[in-house]
């Protein structure tokens, strides 16, 4: 009897060791009926399977009503929604795009990640299908191009800047938002003197750390150096090293909360957004989505109106335009196949002014991709963020998105290591160019 257990034990070990291998080796060969119809969406029935990251309210409900309204005006097109938490797209998309039945519409953050997905050959080129209206988005859609062709369409735009507690600034005697790093550091000292942690950062989530270094790089590097470095996946230009020096000097003033390396960005009251929401920190460098994140993390019903916004301060002597912003956005891509025309129509509908206004008012998406809808932004802090975004000399896409996925993630990790005191300028600079070296 005991003898039969022998192979079973080995099998358990083998099975457990291989679970992870199984995760990375799935390539479904089953075919879907989701987009089996042919021809234009206006004449034949089409079902669009839609993977989006609106898995919580209010976005969940808004997307449902958008899908229903689109179906009402396009009876031949049914939109089947599949809400998926953002982080899961990292694992789901490679497998989906390798399969024969990828979703017809899916969440797309543009940049180098989109270029990485483009190599699957499954992303639909939407240039000709959207040429009649894409100009309404201005420069917002450029970040969703690969080789000058539109393989994705944004529905909102983001800008990173400092969110601060107006009440805590007043308590510390700060009367105006800082415009230079020196002023920011002096305000940090005032907040500390008042017993307030100056800045909360979600180091445990890694990407919030990267915002600091990237903003210093945006301030230190000229637009052309920034663009050519991103394109060449090479950060050996001296301005990036200067960014590391700036960051080192800034971190030497200990502006962050204790134990920030383990703090998550948006989960729970102990997260960096939670610390800001609960008055445990004076500021946080975050995207404009902050206003949609903080209400869930505090019992303070007026939290959004308690927050103010100012752009990342100027760095004297830097070659970057002082108005440039670190930016990005959310959008969607379509996959190749019969559903392409219907998908393009659907994305046009999402970017139409009424839907964009609905997204701003009901889903707190921040800044709409179609600036015609910005007029419905009522929160003064969001208005300030929108103004900074729209009047910026240029918008630099967050580097982890601008780079292809592998070097982008390598940079995030190198910067998180640096924040944890385990990195140097070389590990940051080399992370993107030697990202195959792990």
């Amino acid at each position, binding site marked *: 009897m005991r003898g039969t257990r022998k192979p079973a034990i080995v099998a358990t070990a083998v099975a457990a060791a291989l679970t992870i291998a199984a995760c990375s080796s799935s390539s479904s060969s089953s075919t879907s009926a989701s987009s089996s119809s042919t021809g234009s969406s206006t004449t034949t029935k089409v079902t669009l399977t839609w993977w989006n990251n609106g898995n919580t309210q209010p976005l969940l409900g808004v997307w449902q009503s958008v899908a229903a309204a689109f179906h009402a005006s396009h009876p031949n097109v049914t939109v089947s929604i599949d809400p998926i938490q953002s982080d899961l797209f990292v694992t789901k998309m490679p497998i989906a795009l390798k399969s024969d039945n990828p979703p017809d519409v899916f969440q797309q953050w543009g940049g180098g990640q989109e270029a990485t997905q483009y190599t699957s050959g499954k992303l639909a080129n939407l240039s000709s299908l959207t040429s009649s209206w894409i100009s309404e988005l201005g420069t917002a859609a450029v970040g969703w191009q690969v080789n000058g062709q539109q393989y994705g369409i944004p529905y909102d735009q983001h800008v990173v800047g400092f969110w601060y507690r107006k009440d805590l600034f007043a308590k510390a005697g700060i009367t105006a938002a800082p415009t230079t790093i020196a002023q920011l550091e002096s305000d940090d000292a005032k907040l500390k003197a008042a017993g307030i942690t100056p800045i909360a950062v979600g*180091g445990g989530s890694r990407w919030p750390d990267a915002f600091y270094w990237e903003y210093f790089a945006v301030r230190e590097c000229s637009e052309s150096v920034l663009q050519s470095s991103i394109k060449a996946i090479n950060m050996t230009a001296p301005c990036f090293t200067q960014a590391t020096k700036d960051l080192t000097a800034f971190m030497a003033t200990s502006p962050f909360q204790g134990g920030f390396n383990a703090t998550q960005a948006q989960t729970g009251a102990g997260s960096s957004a939670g610390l800001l929401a609960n008055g445990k920190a004076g500021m946080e460098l975050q995207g404009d989505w902050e206003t949609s994140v903080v209400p869930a993390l505090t019992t303070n019903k007026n939290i959004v109106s308690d927050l103010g916004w100012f752009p990342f301060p100027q760095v004297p002597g830097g070659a970057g335009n002082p108005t440039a912003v670190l930016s990005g956005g959310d959008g969607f891509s379509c996959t190749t196949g019969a559903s392409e025309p219907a998908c393009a129509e659907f994305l046009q509908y999402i970017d139409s002014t009424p839907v964009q206004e609905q997204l701003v008012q009901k889903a707190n998406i921040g800044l709409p991709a179609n600036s015609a809808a910005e007029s419905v932004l009522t929160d003064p802090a969001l208005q300030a963020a929108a103004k900074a975004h729209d009047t910026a000399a240029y918008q630099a896409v967050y580097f982890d998105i601008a780079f292809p996925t592998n070097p982008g993630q390598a940079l995030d990790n190198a910067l998180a290591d640096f924040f944890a005191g385990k990195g140097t300028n070389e590990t940051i600079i080399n992370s993107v160019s030697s990202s195959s070296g792990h």
Partner: protein
Amino acid sequence: MARTQGAIAAGREATSRPAAMAGRPPRSRRRLRKAAELTALLGPPIVLFVGFVIVPMIFAAWYSLYNWSGFGPLSDFIGFQNYSGVLTGPVFHQALLHNVIIAVLSLVIQLPVSIGLALLLNWRVRSRTVLRLAVFAPFVLSEATAAVMWYELLQPGGPVDALLEAVGLGGLVHYWLASTSLVLYTVFAVATWKYIGFGIVLLLAGLQGIPPELREAAAIDGATPWQVTRTITLPLLAPTIRIWIFLSVIGSLQLFDLVWIMTMGGPANASSTMLTYQYVNGVERTQFGYGATVSVVLFVISLVFALAYQRYALRRDTAGALTRAVM
């Protein structure tokens, strides 16, 4: 399918068989029946095992030879370059070292504590069932739940810190998850809390299997309780302990969920394990060829350990012999 054919064949034989031989089924019929039984019983597990273990393994080994982002065809064959990347990378060495540290700490700390608690809970003490339930409860929680719970408890100024301060141990308060020198041990402590119940239940089952007569006889012969435990109970518990060690080491090598949710292997890889390394470098960075390589390396390490342990430690148990100490 085979079962049906076997039944049909058996039926045909039955009708043509001479009446005189009806008392004993012919050898061919018994063989068919045995084949049908084996097919019915072994078929499904073999299909599952091949489909979910062997085939993914082959795929992983195949992918590991390519530079592959997960998108598009496998076209960039790079031989064993991924393997040299994994095996010579300092970050992987660090992750492997963390797995080994967790495994060693499990043996040095979890095992004695588990044995001690199992011996205690084996006594006929009042509310023994409640106590057993209490130590086993954490094991029933999902890893994700336990990880989120402990992440919140261990926040700076959180409940753990508050408790330490309340009992006058405020000097022990640390950044449990943010300190690069402490975080691995914090994770180990949570893993111990989570899994100690499993070890205890396993050992309790082992204790139940020891005939009470042996202990009673020793006691009548004048052995002290400690002598009985040391010379009777523990040697007879050895097969269970060896199984626990096996499961514990394999579990330590494959630690992922708790770590990922609490720390993502950070800060700065200070709590990384081979699987967080695999996830960061294979999945997040969409280097699926490289990730597959890490899987294969982890598989080989687990397999070598499993086979060596079978060969040298479990052989006596699986051969059905009693341990030498008792004989």
